[in-house]
């Protein structure tokens, strides 16, 4: 049981990193960003490209590349459709996601590639009778630091307050002098940074790369923000941990015959939740910008 909880905490941390990246853009500009998965995928391939360098340098470069991609996405695609309906934004991100996948497919091919960034993180240590991977420690610890950092940024910096204001009422924020381009670009930057770090952890735990590897993480992100309540940042992180707990528990306790259908149950659960709470578990109607 305790072992499962540790696993859920580790998985939940990874999910939370992904979910926050998605939720940040959703709360500020009403965008459900499909292409967030491709940011993670690009991060994965960047890890491969820079793998000959020392790990710390690689990590910084990976995050920088992903942030760069995120900013480029905003400038080249999303800026033109800003303020359009949620569906248009969603489809734009869908198109962008395919486009990036196509590009990587062209240059890297469809075959899975493997990389071992794990190094000595693969080992595990005994803590109070539990075997905890060093990677799990790293994921949990780094995520905790990042969440605290994001909270600090949003509370204590002028840009952070501007972002929170824009998330509540973008138009009014602009009327007060908040620069729309700056706030949105910053959101893409933060989202990209989270995606880059999530990519490192994801690839470290799976060890393999494909051009379509972004799909699963981004779905996890969507599910987490729906669970948490559309448009609420911290609820999305909470949703991510709940989803991870659910996943780990289903894995551990589902009878063998039903086990393959675990994902079906999770996603069906999402639909049922939405059916009764169209704005998410913690969501309010007003919090959704449509």
């Amino acid at each position, binding site marked *: 049981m305790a072992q499962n909880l540790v696993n859920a905490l580790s998985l939940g941390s990874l999910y939370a990193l992904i979910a926050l990246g998605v939720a940040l853009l959703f709360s500020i500009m009403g965008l*459900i960003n499909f292409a967030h998965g491709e940011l993670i995928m690009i991060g994965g391939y960047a890890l491969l490209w820079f793998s000959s360098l020392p790990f710390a340098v690689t990590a910084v470069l990976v995050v920088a590349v992903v942030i760069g991609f995120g900013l480029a996405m905003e400038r080249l*695609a999303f*800026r*033109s*459709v*800003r*303020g*359009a*309906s*949620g*569906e*248009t934004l*969603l*489809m*734009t991100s*869908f*198109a*962008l*996601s*395919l*486009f990036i*996948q*196509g*590009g*990587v*497919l*062209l*240059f890297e*091919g*469809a075959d899975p590639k493997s990389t071992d960034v794990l190094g000595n993180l693969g080992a595990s240590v005994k803590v109070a009778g539990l075997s905890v991977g060093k990677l799990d420690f790293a994921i949990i610890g780094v995520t905790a630091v990042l969440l605290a950092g994001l909270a600090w940024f949003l509370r204590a910096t002028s840009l952070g307050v501007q972002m929170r204001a824009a998330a509540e009422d*973008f*138009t009014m924020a*602009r009327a007060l002098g908040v620069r*729309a*381009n700056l706030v949105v670009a910053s959101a893409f930057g933060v989202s990209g940074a989270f995606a880059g770090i999530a990519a490192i952890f994801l690839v470290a735990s799976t060890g393999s790369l494909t*051009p379509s590897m972004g*799909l699963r993480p981004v*779905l996890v992100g*969507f*599910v987490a923000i*729906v669970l948490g309540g*559309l448009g609420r940042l911290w609820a999305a992180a909470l949703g991510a941990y709940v989803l991870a707990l659910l996943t780990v528990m289903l894995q551990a306790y589902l009878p063998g015959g039903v086990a*393959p*259908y*675990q*994902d*079906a*149950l999770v*996603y*069906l659960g*999402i*639909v*049922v939740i*939405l*059916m009764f709470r*169209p*704005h998410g578990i913690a969501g309010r109607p007003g919090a*959704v910008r*449509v």
Partner: protein
Amino acid sequence: MTNTRFPLLSRGAPAVTCTLLVLVVSGLALLGSETTQRTATQMLVMGVITVGTYIFVGNSGVLSFGHVVFVAVGAYATALTTMPHALKQALLPALPGWLADLELALPVALLFSGLLSVLVAAVFALLTLRLDGMAAGIASLALLISVNVVISNWDAVTRGSQGIVGIPADLTIGATVPWLIGAIAIAMAYQLSRPGFRLRASREDPVAAAALGVRIRRDRSIALVISAFVCGVGGGLYVRFLGALTPGDVYLQLTLLTLLMLIVGGIRSLSGAVIGTVFISVLAELLRRIEAGGGVGPIELHPHPGIQQLILALTLLLTLLLRPGGITSGRELGFSLPARIGARRKGPPPAPAADEPAESPSGVRS
């Protein structure tokens, strides 16, 4: 509320024009090579699926990622009811007896597939019709994933991710055209019917429509059911085109292709669905040849995988950025201009005619 002063022929004009377009393209393809004919057949099958999806998405304005579920249901239903008996026993020994023995003629199987999809659509309606906008999009996506997980693991019936092989892949242009014309006719008839008109009115202004007594959920259910039927038939045709079926064939890739065709063509009109299908099919085929080009290996091997996806995605992206209404921008192809103008002037909510997306009054757009 439909304008009765104009004869059915002129109100149904878009369907006639679309049919002519389909016939001309098919006729041209018949002059081409075997590969061209196969591509044209695929285009016609995609046309059925796209028109089917359009019936719901286009008329209701609710985004759906889930329509490929109906295609999947239709595809498996047709596969299981039309494949050779002996092969079925060998591949799927655990199949329930009645299904193992069932062998239907293709038209019957297709209609059966459509009806089965209607049943699934009823469950869909129950689960998602309260939702709007992005919640609806996410819910339909979640359903698509759930169904895909089920068919990927239901070894007894679907053979899981190994897929079903040996389905007769005998679909020809001539055999497919009537089904597409039928789909267009159904879509047009629905569009001209009262429920269709009401749903389009609710798409333009849900609040006003509700105030006028339009029961949106009921009207959406009707559209979903008709839409699912056509998509189910489309799925049946699709599997007879492919000859083999794995869960991946009826998943995200196909969803994307359908939405791509709809959006590039113009999601708000039947003509848009048909034009989008033709346009994207031709483009995709050209790209496939480029991908395969350079004399590297046979066509089935793709020396440059990605180019096709890259350009198709770019097409979708540019459409969304530069021409959000798609090629047709909500207009229908027709030869009865006066009827359209008349309808536009008379109906209080703009009838099927032009509808540019309204600028949001908050003016957030920079």
